[in-house]
């Protein structure tokens, strides 16, 4: 950390150095300082403390810290709950992102067509993205409620079931519906990103292809899709990161239950830190998550660079 700032004295590559007055440097530093300070105190410092705490045994009553090396990690990796939570996280991330993209790209292509009422439809389709997690969980809990819910009511009326099913009482169905709710909320984000990219597609390309007699599938496969790919990858990166660390929707849906059935890794961190009072292992879980996120984003950046190159 410290060395990073020391290097300010000897900037190695400063392209604009010649053109800039001393006051410019002062200005640059003045402009960036408040951001550095705030990000440091309220994001980086707590993050470092979290990493730090993962190597300590933390007494929950007194917060006394004793160094215990990798004991927290050993403890954590020996618990089935950790591996189960990791598995549920994987299910949650893949389940939501895959369907978000299939639905999202489909809807975006649809809304890109010259159809009547397209603008209104665009607006409406984006609504779920604006619905706060708390409202989302209220909504879906209400719809799925075995006593009050419209979903059970419809299944009963159509004669598909003979008594109401408590979807949120069983670990598997609870997770399934959390995933469905996740798809519902975040598909619009994909629509938005893809649509924005579609709007700036070079018309010449499409027209040239049409002149060459390409059918609509070929048009999509060879023109539209490569054009979309960089945005799809960036969006996929963002969605995967956000979905992986998503806490509020998953937690508010069923508070991690029933029987840990909706406990993904972030919910596990909360459980360990606040319910089980295991602050060290909680920090270790969070650190493990961070490592996974870094690996994921590294992979996506490689893909992204490749896609950009292909395009040009």
């Amino acid at each position, binding site marked *: *950390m*410290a060395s990073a*700032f*020391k290097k*300010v*004295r000897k900037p190695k590559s400063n392209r604009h150095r010649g053109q800039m007055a*001393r006051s410019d*440097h*002062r200005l640059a*530093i003045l402009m960036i*300082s408040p951001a*550095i*300070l705030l990000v*440091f*105190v309220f994001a980086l*410092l707590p993050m470092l*403390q979290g990493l730090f705490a993962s190597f300590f045994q*933390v007494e*929950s*009553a*007194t*917060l*006394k*810290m004793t160094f215990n090396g990798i004991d927290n990690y050993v403890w954590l990796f020996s618990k089935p709950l950790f591996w189960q939570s990791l598995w549920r996280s994987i299910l949650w991330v893949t389940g939501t992102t895959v369907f978000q993209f299939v639905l999202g790209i489909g809807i975006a292509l649809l809304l890109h067509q010259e159809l009547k009422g397209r603008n209104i439809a665009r607006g409406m389709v984006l609504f779920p993205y604006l619905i706060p997690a708390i409202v989302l969980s209220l909504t879906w809990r209400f719809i799925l*409620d*075995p*006593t*009050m819910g419209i979903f059970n009511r419809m299944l*009963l009326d159509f004669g598909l079931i*003979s*008594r*109401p*099913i*408590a979807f*949120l*009482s*069983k*670990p598997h169905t609870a997770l399934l519906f959390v995933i469905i709710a996740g798809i519902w909320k975040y598909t619009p984000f994909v629509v938005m990103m893809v649509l924005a990219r579609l709007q700036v597609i070079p018309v010449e390309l499409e027209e040239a292809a049409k002149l060459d007699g390409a059918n609509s599938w070929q048009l999509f496969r060879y023109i539209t899709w490569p054009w979309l790919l960089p945005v799809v990858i960036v969006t996929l990166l963002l969605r995967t990161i956000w979905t992986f660390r998503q806490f509020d929707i998953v937690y508010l849906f069923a*508070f991690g*239950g*029933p*029987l840990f*059935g909706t406990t993904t890794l972030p919910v596990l961190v909360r459980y360990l830190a606040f*319910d089980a*009072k295991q602050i060290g292992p909680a920090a270790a879980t969070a650190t493990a998550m961070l490592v996974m996120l870094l690996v994921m984003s590294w992979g996506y950046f490689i893909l992204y660079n490749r896609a950009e190159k292909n395009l040009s």
Partner: protein
Amino acid sequence: MKRVFSIVILTALVFLVAACASNNTNTNANNTVEKVVVTKEVVKEVVVTPTPGPETGPRTLTFFTTEADPPQLDILAEIIDEYHKDHPDVYIDVVTGTPATRGERITTLLAAGADAGIFEIEPSFSRDWAEAGYLLPLTDVFEAIGGEDEYIPGSYFQYKDTVYALPYATSVYGLWYRKDLFEEAGLKPPTNYDEVLAAAKALTDPQKGIYGISIPGSTNASVNFFSTFLWQQCLDYYTPQGELIFDKPEALDAIKKWVALTEYAPPGFENYSWGDQITAFVTGKAAMSVYAGRLGVRMPDQAPQLEDKADIVRLPWGTRPDSPYVTYGSWSRIAISANTKYPETAKDFLQFFLSGDRLARYDATVIGHMVPPTKSVAKMLENWDSDYAKRHSDWLAFFNENAAYTNHPDNNMGSVEGCNFVKKDYGPPWGGPIFSKGGIIDLMFQQIFVGGEDPETAWKDAVAKMKDVQDEWLAAHPDWTPPTY
């Protein structure tokens, strides 16, 4: 310039890291996970110095409450205004908090020797705080309001012949049932376990969408409702001295009987919590439901057509003639910080608030759900001037009559000994992980209801965990001595 900048940043860094490191090692006042440690450790350092002397001139007191719903706060503000009119020098600041953080907040203040004013007390901390000298003796206020003749036994908090906390309300849980469905089936209101089981079975009709009895299987409500069942089987989790007795085979028997009732519970009961108990009943989907006064209060709005068809009886869990009658509930109480600047003024206001029509108006905000601790206020509420009270004075009388039988697993350790119920005002200090929301007992039922586990396995598992929790706590607190009664 850049050099100055990097030095500034570096200094800031060092300072911050240092600040946070020291923070990690010496902050314990605000963290009350191990409730008792905190209080006991601090006793030695804090010198309690009440400042007696004339209390004149402008005085401001704080009043800390978790009853933060606007209707309750409105009445409280009204009462404070009335007091202020008679005592123009006295100002009272209302501070609200949530029940989850109530203990933490007050502990921080008391442990720091600060003036916590008048506050709602955390039941499980009462004894330690009284012992530590944090609380102002309120025996004189208690006597002035009417003493033992007026207060329901067990409602106020007394330690070694001194009263330290005075109650304002409790909730009383009973069995709500549908008179019309019972009559149709030729059944009488249940008075014991066999009758309630038979009625639940007879009234369950999935074709019509009606189920016999609503029982909450999810976390928090689960442990508290099952406890009433356990107590009525002449059992408890611990003896008054803290010896585990939940490992007796009779406890497993109680679990099995409780689980047998859930066969007639509405689908999804395993996810039911407090509110769902009301929902199941007011939607007409459960013929019986365990709840307190709030279910009745909701009925005029949510199920006016059921209002005349509903009634409430005592929880009928008894399996033998000498089964004790115990129900769920915990008294909400108010105490005053021993360190307060104006003890006499605080006591005077407390007496004003907790007596006469002031308390009646306060408890009437959720009439029947907030059951008053004194006989005179109870009478006032039974004759309260509202449509609901006029139509259902019998329900209100029911709650008042049964308020003395409330008990709480985490606050009253060993109240049931054999088949006798004598309320003990002390909770197991290691009880948190066992009785709290999502604790060991809740998880045991989740394993049975959701995980499909056999009750015996789940019970053995729970008992083993309870032993571990207790052993661990006792090992960390070798000085602890069981209470004596």
